[in-house]
């Protein structure tokens, strides 16, 4: 049996498969469900300062097995309510990473302070929601903003801080570099890719919010590209997110440079059983390749790789 355990920002994980933020993360009981099903850890829904219902429905549009759009609008019960859910999960032994979102560095810092008291093993800063006015990409697409937010949070808390980076940027690696400089202990990449679907019969966007975020297999290559580029620029560990639904997918992310991964859309329909299935598949592919420790493959695809020139002699 290959060893699937990894260390992420100093935290030992039994396996690298984390529940992605926004999926099954509203109730402590669901977090427990993901953990019991085999997740190596869970990331909470992104929590803000106040209760927020999110956008009206339709909030999701599934167009195929390979892709889905959502614009939930960051619904969350607020930082005053949510800790009870985390505690329920913690009491069960779940390793919980607390995700927060805010509109300013001060708001992030305040939320971080409160979140850090709930027993989370780390914080994930959502700097990357593509469809929430004033939050998300707006604050997460400028390296200076990223640096400021991360610095403000790191100053407040002792737990490791992970910055979740948007793919909707000219150079996601630049954002990761800014986060590292400001003291982040890890990078998550990516959040959803900005997308839209129109119903042509009605001549209107399907999602109530119009613009949403694309997730699922369609964005796997986008997430891999981000992880690849970030790995070449930072020392801190990377959590790969985007389109993962098999053990092979996890291995691609690990070889691109990820130390752990998050799984989101693949939980739809199949439920958290997906963690057990993927862990098994990962086990099998590692055995097939004669590798006994997943950790040894982090960044393996970079070894010996050189970018060729386009002017090679014809």
């Amino acid at each position, binding site marked *: 049996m290959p060893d699937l355990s990894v260390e992420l920002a100093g935290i030992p994980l039994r396996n690298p498969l984390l529940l992605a933020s926004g999926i099954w993360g509203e109730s402590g009981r669901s977090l427990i469900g993901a953990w019991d099903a085999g997740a190596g850890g869970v990331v909470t829904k992104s929590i803000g300062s106040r209760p927020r219902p999110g956008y009206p429905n339709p909030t999701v549009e599934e167009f195929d097995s390979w892709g889905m759009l959502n614009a939930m609008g960051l619904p969350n019960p607020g930082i005053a309510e949510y800790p009870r859910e985390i505690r329920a999960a913690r009491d069960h032994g779940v390793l919980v990473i607390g995700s927060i979102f805010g509109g300013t560095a001060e708001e992030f810092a305040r939320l971080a302070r409160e979140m850090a008291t709930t027993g989370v093993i780390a914080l994930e800063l959502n700097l990357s929601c593509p469809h929430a006015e004033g939050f998300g990409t707006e604050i997460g697409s400028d390296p200076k903003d990223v640096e400021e937010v991360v610095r403000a949070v790191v100053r407040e808390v002792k737990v490791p801080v992970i910055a979740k980076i948007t793919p909707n940027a000219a150079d996601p690696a630049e954002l990761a570099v800014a986060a590292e400089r400001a003291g982040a202990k890890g990078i998550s990449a990516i959040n959803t890719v900005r997308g839209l679907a129109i119903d042509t019969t009605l001549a209107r966007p399907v999602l109530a919010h119009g613009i949403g975020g694309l997730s699922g297999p369609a964005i796997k290559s986008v997430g891999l590209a981000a992880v690849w580029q970030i790995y070449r620029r930072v020392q801190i560990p990377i959590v790969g997110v985007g389109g993962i639904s098999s053990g092979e997918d996890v291995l691609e992310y690990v070889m691109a440079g990820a130390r752990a991964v998050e799984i989101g859309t693949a939980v739809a*329909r199949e439920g958290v059983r997906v963690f057990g299935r993927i862990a098994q598949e990962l086990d099998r592919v590692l055995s097939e390749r004669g590798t006994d420790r997943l950790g040894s493959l982090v960044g393996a695809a970079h070894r010996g790789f050189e970018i060729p020139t386009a002017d090679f002699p014809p």
Partner: protein
Amino acid sequence: MHRIVEIEDRVLETPSTVTWRFPYAEPCAPGQFVMVWIPGDDELPMSLSYTDGPSKGVTIKAMGSTTRHVQSLPTGTRIGIRGPYGNRFDLTPRRILVVGGGSGTAVLAPGAEQALRSGAQVTCALGATTELELLFAKRLTAAGARVEVSTDDGTAGTPGFVTAVADRLLAEGSFDAVWTCGPEVMMRKVAESARSRGIIGYGSVERHMKCALGMCDACSLGPYHVCVDGPVFRTETLLSLEEFGRTKRDPSGRRVPL
């Protein structure tokens, strides 16, 4: 993926309840629900009140802003449908007691009809606040069910709550299964009655829904997600859940009293 359909038929079932029929080819089973998109307004989970044939149906009770506003939409209105989602009623029991409260009867009717067509005995206890609000009593009688009604105000049938009628029927006859849908306090009562008599019960429950795909956690109920693990649960299971009959989550995920 939404399919845009036109409301091809519209029946005012009660002063506060409308049924829409619409063409929808996906196979659907009693107990399942669809997400109904009212373009420009909201998208709501609705149990299928008609599951057979090319025309499916939903029966909508005016509860809040959208469900109130849609009561008056004319036939020809275009709506979006996705689904069906969720699980279904077990149609194998041969002697079924159906206990419906208010618009809860909507989800019970197509299953009762199918069971009757396959030779089962179906007894229905239908409750409403008042006579005019009784749902599908005629439909179920016509389908061959024995139907008993109750109204809170006594304008029809037994005065009082439908749980009393259900208890009496349970005492009188012998049943293999009880199906129920309605307010959770009512369902809890029915579930306890069934348990005390050792009869299997199934209840269809509602929680706030967003994705209907088992992903967003909006509809979580204990360890379950109503959109994929439900909406039909064994009443035993429901009774074991601290939240059942007591709390739900609002759209932000906060726990609120039912």
